C-alpha cells in the first residue's frame, strides 16, 4: 500500500507540474520571455518524469505481471504522459514553444479527468485481458492517439496563422457547448433539473440501479445545478446565433457581443461544474460514472471555451509569435506520419489479441470499427496530401475531423456504444 501512496504522490506531482507548465505556456504566449518558456518546458519534463516514475511504481506494485494500463484511470495517465512526451520531442526539434499553450491543456485535462476517477486501485486483470498483446496494443494506441492530438494542435495553430477568422473557432466552441447540453437528456431543457443515474457499489464495482421490476434506470435529481446548466445552454445558443450572424454580416459590434456571450457562458458553466463536482461528492448514490458521456462532454466544452478565450485575448501577440505557417503545416503532417504506422500497429495488435481471445481477428465490434474509421480518416489525409497535393487549410480540416474521431474512438465508443472493450467500466 505504501508503494501505492508513493505512486499516487508522483502522479499528483505530475498533475501539478502539468498545471504549472500550462500556466507558464499561457504566460509565455503573452510575453514570450525566454525564461518563462524554459521554465514551462522544464516543468513539463519534470511532470513527464514524475508520471513515468509513478507508472513504473504502479507496474512494480502490480507485481510486474502486467504494465499499468488496464483501466480508464491508468489509460488516462498514460495518455497524459504520451501527449506531453510527443510534444516535448517536437519542441526539442523545432522552434514551436507557442504550441505548448494549446497542447498542454489537453494533457492537463486528461490528468484532471484521471484524478476524478473513483477507481484508482490496481485492478486484477480479468481473463480476457491477460495477454501480452494487450500491452503492445495499449502502448501503441496511447502514443498514436497522443500524436494525433498533437497534430491537431498544430492544425489549429496553422488555421490561426492562416488568418481564419477567430469567430469561426468561437462558433465551433459554441456548437460544442450547445451540443454538450443537448445530450444531457431533456430533463434540463424541459424542467430545469439535472438527473443522474443511480449507482450502487458492490464488491468494488459500480452497478446501475433500475426502478424495481423494470429496465428503466433509476435516476436521482442533483439539486440546484439544473438551472445553471439551463442558463449555460441558453447562452451557448445565443453565442452560436451571434457568431453565425457576425460571420454572415461581418458587423464589428456583433462580434463583441458574441465574445461576451462566450465569456458569460464560461463563467456560468464554471460555477455549474464546480457545484456539480461538490454535489457528486455529497450524494453517495451517484458518481462521475453515472452519466459518463455527459460528464465528459461538460468538461470538453468547458475546456474548449477556455482555450478559445485564451486564444482570443492573446490573438495579436500569438499571431506574431507563431512560426511560419508552412512549418506548422509540415509539423502537423510529420506528426501524423509518425502516428499513422503506430495506428496501423494498434489495429494489428488488437486483431492478434482478438484472434487469441475470441478466435477471430476481426468481428466488426464498434471499437474495432471506430479504430478503422480513424485509420481511414488519416489514410485520407495522407493520400490527399501526398498524392493529390492538398495542403494548408484543407488538410488542417481533415486533421480536425481526425481529432474528433480519435476522441470518440478513445472515449466515446466505450461510453456510448456497447462492445467488447471493457476498460471504460473502471
Amino acid at each position, binding site marked *: 500500500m505504501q508503494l501505492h501512496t508513493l505512486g499516487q504522490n508522483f502522479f499528483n506531482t505530475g498533475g501539478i507540474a502539468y498545471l504549472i507548465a500550462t500556466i507558464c505556456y499561457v504566460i509565455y504566449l503573452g510575453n514570450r520571455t525566454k525564461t518563462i518558456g524554459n521554465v514551462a518546458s522544464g516543468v513539463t519534463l519534470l511532470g513527464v518524469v514524475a508520471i513515468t516514475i509513478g507508472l513504473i511504481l504502479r507496474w512494480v506494485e502490480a507485481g510486474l505481471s502486467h504494465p499499468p494500463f488496464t483501466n480508464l484511470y491508468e489509460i488516462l495517465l498514460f495518455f497524459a504522459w504520451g501527449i506531453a512526451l510527443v510534444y516535448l520531442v517536437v519542441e526539442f526539434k523545432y522552434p514551436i514553444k507557442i504550441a505548448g499553450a494549446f497542447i498542454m491543456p489537453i494533457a492537463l485535462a486528461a490528468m484532471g479527468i484521471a484524478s476524478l476517477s473513483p477507481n484508482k486501485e490496481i*485492478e*486484477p486483470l*480479468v*481473463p*480476457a485481458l*491477460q*495477454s*501480452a498483446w494487450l500491452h503492445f496494443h495499449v502502448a501503441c494506441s496511447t502514443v498514436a492517439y497522443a500524436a494525433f492530438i498533437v497534430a491537431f494542435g498544430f492544425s489549429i495553430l496553422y488555421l490561426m496563422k492562416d488568418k481564419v477568422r477567430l469567430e469561426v473557432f468561437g462558433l465551433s466552441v459554441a456548437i460544442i457547448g450547445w451540443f454538450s447540453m443537448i445530450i444531457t437528456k431533456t430533463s434540463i431543457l424541459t424542467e430545469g433539473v439535472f438527473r443522474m443515474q443511480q449507482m450502487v457499489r458492490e*464488491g*468494488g*464495482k459500480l452497478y446501475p440501479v433500475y426502478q424495481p421490476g423494470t429496465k428503466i434506470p433509476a435516476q436521482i435529481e442533483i439539486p440546484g445545478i439544473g438551472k445553471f446548466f439551463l442558463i449555460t445552454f441558453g447562452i451557448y445558443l445565443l453565442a452560436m446565433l451571434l457568431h453565425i450572424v457576425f460571420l454572415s454580416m461581418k458587423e464589428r459590434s456583433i462580434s463583441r457581443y458574441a465574445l461576451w456571450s462566450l465569456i458569460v457562458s464560461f463563467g456560468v458553466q464554471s460555477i455549474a461544474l464546480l457545484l456539480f463536482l461538490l454535489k457528486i461528492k455529497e450524494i453517495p448514490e451517484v458518481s462521475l460514472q453515472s452519466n459518463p458521456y455527459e460528464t465528459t462532454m461538460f468538461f470538453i466544452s468547458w475546456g474548449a471555451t477556455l482555450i478559445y478565450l485564451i486564444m482570443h485575448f492573446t490573438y495579436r501577440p500569438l499571431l506574431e509569435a507563431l512560426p511560419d505557417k508552412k512549418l506548422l503545416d509540415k509539423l502537423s503532417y510529420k506528426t501524423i*506520419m*509518425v502516428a*499513422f*504506422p503506430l495506428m*496501423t*500497429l494498434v489495429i*494489428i495488435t488488437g*486483431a*492478434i*489479441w482478438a*484472434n*487469441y*481471445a*475470441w*478466435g*477471430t*481477428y*476481426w468481428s*466488426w465490434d*464498434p471499437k474495432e*470499427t*471506430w479504430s*478503422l*474509421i480513424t485509420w*481511414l*480518416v488519416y*489514410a*485520407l489525409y495522407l*493520400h*490527399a*496530401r*501526398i*498524392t*493529390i*497535393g492538398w*495542403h494548408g487549410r484543407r488538410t488542417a480540416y481533415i486533421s480536425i475531423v481526425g481529432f474528433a474521431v480519435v476522441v470518440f474512438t478513445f472515449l466515446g*465508443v466505450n461510453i456510448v*456504444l*456497447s462492445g467488447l472493450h471493457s476498460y471504460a467500466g473502471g
Partner: protein
Amino acid sequence: MTAKATPSPPASGKSPAPRKGIFHSIYYAFNSIRLTVFLFIILGIVSIIGTIIEQGASPEKYAQEYTEGTIRLFNALGLFDMYHTFWFFTLLLLLLLNLTVCTLERLPKVWRFAKRIKPILEEGDEKKYPIRDDFELPGGAEKVEAAFRKLARLPYWMILLDIAAVVLAIFFTREYNFNFLEFVSFIILPLGYVALLNFRGKLIRTEKDGVVHLFVNQWLISRFGVYITHVSILIIFLGAIAGNLFGFKGYMAVGEGETTNRMYVRQARMIDTLMDALQSVSAKTTEDSHTSRSGEFTTLPFSIRCDDFNVSYYDTGLPKDYTSDLVVIENGKETMRKTIEVNDPLVVGKTYFYQSSYGRSGRPGVVVFKVQAPGGEFRTYRAPVRGTFHVDGTDTDIQIMSFVPDFTITNGQVRQRSEEMINPAIYIMGKKGDHLLFNGWFLPKYPEYSIDTAGYKFEFVDYWGSQYTGLQVAYDPGVEVVWIGCSLLVIGLMISFFHSHQRIWARINGDHVVIAGSAHKNRMAFEKKIEDLVKLLRT
C-alpha cells in the same frame, strides 16, 4: 500528382494513349485518386452507421428500439448485418480494384525511373538537381571517396537497434509460447527491416576520360514503400477471403467427464454455402454431400473430452481464470492433452479451440475432497450429494448432505447467492457407527466459521461434473496470410514514411569537385546532410 508534395519521377517517353473501349474506360475510371478519397469517405460514413445501429441483435431487441416500418426498411437494406451485405462487400471490392489499378499504373513508372538512374554526373547535369555545390579541393578524389564511403555505410545504431529488436523478440517468444504469429511479428519484421536496410546503397565509382564519378543511391526502396503497403492490403484481403471461403467457426459444449465430436456450426465454410446454392439451382440433391450449414450440427473427425473445468477468483470476487482440461481423442486414442484458458487455445492441426463460456450442465456433480483422519494422511474421496464415503483406515463414514457453490447467510437463512463457485459450502455429517461426530457446514474459504470436525481435516478440491465448458471452434486457413500482410503493411509504411530516396553525385576533375544531390522527401534534413558533408571536406 503535384511536384510540390512528391516530385513524381520525371516522365519521359509517352505513356501509351488510352485506347477506347468499355474495358479501358472502366480500367481508367479506377485509376483515380479522387475515387479513393470518395471511397474512404463513404466507407467511413457507412461504418459509422454500422456502429450506431446494433449489429446482429435479437429481433426482440430491435422491436423495442425501432418501429415496424423502420425495421422493415433496415432489414431490406441489410443494416442489421451491414458488414456482411452485398453492397458493403461491393464497396470493399471497389476500393481493392482502385488500389490495384493505381498500383499497376504507377509502379512501372517508378520502376522505369529507378532503372534510369545514372551513376555518372555529366557536365551540366548538376543543374537538374536542387542541391549542388562546387569547390576546389587539392587531392580531392580520395577525400571525397572516403566521405562518400562513410555516407553509404550502415549506421551502427541501426544495427544495434535491430539486434535489440531480435533479442526482445526472443525474450517475448520465450515468455509467451513461441508460435508462428510471434515469429512473423517479432523475427521476420525486424529482420526484414534489416534486410531492407541493406538497400541503403553502395558507392559506385566510375572513371571516364580521367574524371572520377562517385554516386551513392540510398533508400531507393523508399519510393516502393507505398506499393509494398498497397500489396500488403491486397494480401490481407486475400487472407480474409480464403478464411471465409475455406474456414469455419463453431461452438462446442463439453460437460465435465464427457467426450464429444458434435459441433454447432456458427459460420459455415462459404464454399459449402456456394456449392449448396449451385446444387439447389441445378436441382440435384446429393445425399452424401459433406457440406455443413450455419445453424446446424456437424461432427469433427476427432473427439474432445473435458476432464475438468474450473473458474478461479480474485479476492474481490472478479474472475481470474477460466480453465478447461481438454483431451483430444482420435480413433479411440488420446493424442493430445492441454489445459486451455482465455488467450491460450488448444490447437489440433489447424483447428483452434478457445475457452469462451461455461455453464451448468444440469447433471448432479460429485464433491471431491481431501480428508485427513487424525494421525493419518490426506486422501482424496469423491461422493455425490446425499452420498456417503468411508474414510480409509478408520471406522468413520462421512455423508455429504448438501452443496452450495456460493454460500451466504441472510436473515439467518442459508442462501445460494449465485451459481458461481465463489464461496463454496458443503454440509457434511460424520458418523462413527451410530455415534454422530460432527454435523454442519464446512466453508473451505472461511475455516474459522466451519464446524468443528473432531480432528478430521478437510480440503475441498472441486465440485466436479456439473459444469460444461463452452468452446469456440475456429478453422481459418487464411489467418497466416493476414499476418504476413499485416507485417508487410507496417514495413511498407515505415520505409515509405521514415526514409527518403536520396541520391548524391560527385564529379572530381583534378582538384575541382562538383557535388549534386536530390531527395524525394524531407529535403531540409537532406540539405543539412550535404552542407555538413561539404563543410567537412573543405576543412
